[in-house]
Structure formats: structure tokens, C-alpha cells
């Protein structure tokens, strides 16, 4: 169930996050993200500019894809649980692409009364190519 409480004790290494499917990506979402984020690089808005830059047309902000992956994490672990999240932008996300965000628990550690879970996270396009690859650390409450 979305937004259900996850407790540290109930997490097992190897557990998979429910996949989060985003898209197909539309220009209006990139325009909206530009406004919300303040990143108005025309390479995400203006096909002519992006073509002239040798990019073969507009593509999505990397940070939008990172936002998708972060959502996949917090849909599972809860808002406010992310301690660290890092990604590499492995491939461009284009208009009409469908981005599926996934994750898996790599490890668990308990210290100072805090339960931390290490996750591997990634996003794939509709051809199964990785567009984002990264890691996250979430802190979960104990079941007391």
C-alpha cells in the first residue's frame, strides 16, 4: 500500500521497492519542472536550440528523473526518511519515454538507536536501458 509505514525490523536485505512508472514524458512536464526548479536551460525546452547544440532534440532535466527515483524511495520508506541519495545520469530521457524507477535493499545497519537501510536505486526507459543509477540511505523507525 502506498505511504504505508515501513519499520526497520520488517526490512530484509534483497527486498525490492515497488516499481514507480512515470511518463510518457511530455514537453509540458519539462516546462513545468523548469518553472518549479528554476532550471531554464533551453536545451530542455527548445528543440531548435537542442539540435543546434548537437543533442538531437530536447531531453528531460536529469533532476526530474532523480525526483522520480527519490519518489520511488519515499513512496516505500516514507517522506522525510532519506538521509542520503546519489545518482549518476547514465542516459538521456527523451519526450515520450516511459521511466520506471526501481530499487532494492542492499544492507541494513543499526547505530545510535537508528536503523539505516542502504538501497540501490535505478530507473529504466521503455527499452530497459538504465537512465539513472544510484544509491540511497533511508532511516526507518524500529517496531517497538
Amino acid at each position, binding site marked *: 500500500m502506498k505511504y504505508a509505514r515501513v519499520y526497520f525490523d520488517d526490512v530484509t536485505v534483497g527486498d525490492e521497492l515497488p516499481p514507480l512508472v512515470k511518463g510518457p514524458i511530455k514537453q509540458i512536464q519539462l516546462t513545468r519542472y523548469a518553472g518549479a526548479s528554476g532550471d531554464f536551460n533551453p536545451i530542455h525546452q527548445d528543440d531548435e536550440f537542442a539540435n543546434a547544440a548537437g543533442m538531437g532534440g530536447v531531453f528531460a532535466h536529469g*533532476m526530474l528523473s532523480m525526483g522520480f527515483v527519490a519518489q520511488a524511495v519515499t513512496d516505500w520508506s516514507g517522506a*522525510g526518511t532519506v538521509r542520503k541519495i546519489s545518482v549518476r545520469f547514465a542516459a538521456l530521457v527523451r519526450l515520450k519515454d516511459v521511466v520506471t524507477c526501481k530499487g532494492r535493499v542492499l544492507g541494513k545497519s543499526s547505530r545510535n538507536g537508528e536503523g539505516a537501510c542502504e538501497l540501490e536505486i535505478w530507473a529504466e526507459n521503455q527499452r530497459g536501458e538504465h537512465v539513472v543509477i544510484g544509491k540511497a540511505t533511508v532511516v526507518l523507525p524500529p517496531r517497538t
Partner: protein
Amino acid sequence: MAIPVNKAIVGKEYPPYTVTVERGRIKDFARAIGDLNPFYLDDEVGRCSAWGDIIAPPTFATTFRDESRSAAMLADLGVDISRVLHGEQEFEFHGQLQPGQTYLCRTKVLDIYEKAGRSGPMAFIVRETAVTDRDNEIVATMRHITVVRL
């Protein structure tokens, strides 16, 4: 022909700037991603939460940008924005970013290196931004790697 980037800015710290987080900005940002988590969008849920108000999504600190400083860095590097890509990004949190709070952002260039990419030579610019609150406590650290197609 490859364009050289100015590596002399490694170690340079740009002038600090402050950002005051607006409630509406958090909500617009969450909606732009399509993340409708009530802890980001619903004031009542925020009020009843452990944090006493709504909080920002994990990648929200990307809005803590200052166009004049970004432009200054590109000018320092000697590159045009059309050659710039986002390579990597990291956020580390020590607290939550919340509406009405004012934060101080300090960005430093940590490293610049060159590498052959799939589509030719590239330069990687590694920057770190420390985000501190009014009590000078660190709330978040961002690490960005910007890629320049040479």
C-alpha cells in the same frame, strides 16, 4: 577541436547566498515531479507530523540556485551552457527543509578533470554546496558533477 576549460577555479568558493523557502514552491516542485505525497502538499498533515509543518521532497534543494553565480561559473570555465550536461548529483541531509526557513548556501569547486566520453572528450566539474540554517547548523550538503562536452 577541443575547447580547454579553465582549471584555475578548483578551490574557488563563490559568494554565499541565502534562500528563503516558500510553502508554494515546495508544493509546485512536488507537483512538477508528480509526487503527491501529503507530507509535501497538505498543510494539515504537516501540522500533525513530527516536523510540525510540511517538508520538502529530497531533491528540492536543487531549487537553491542562483543564476548569477551559475552564469559566473560558466564564464569562469569559459564554456557555453549548450555544452553542459548534468553528470551526477548527491544530497545528504541532517534535517528537513521547511517553509518559512532561510538557509545559507555556500558553493565551492572541488575538482575538475577530463575524461574521454562516449561522444568525445569531456570535462567534469565537481562542486559542493553546504546548506546551513539560521543557527549555522548544517542541514544539507549537495554534490554536483557537471559535464562539459569539449
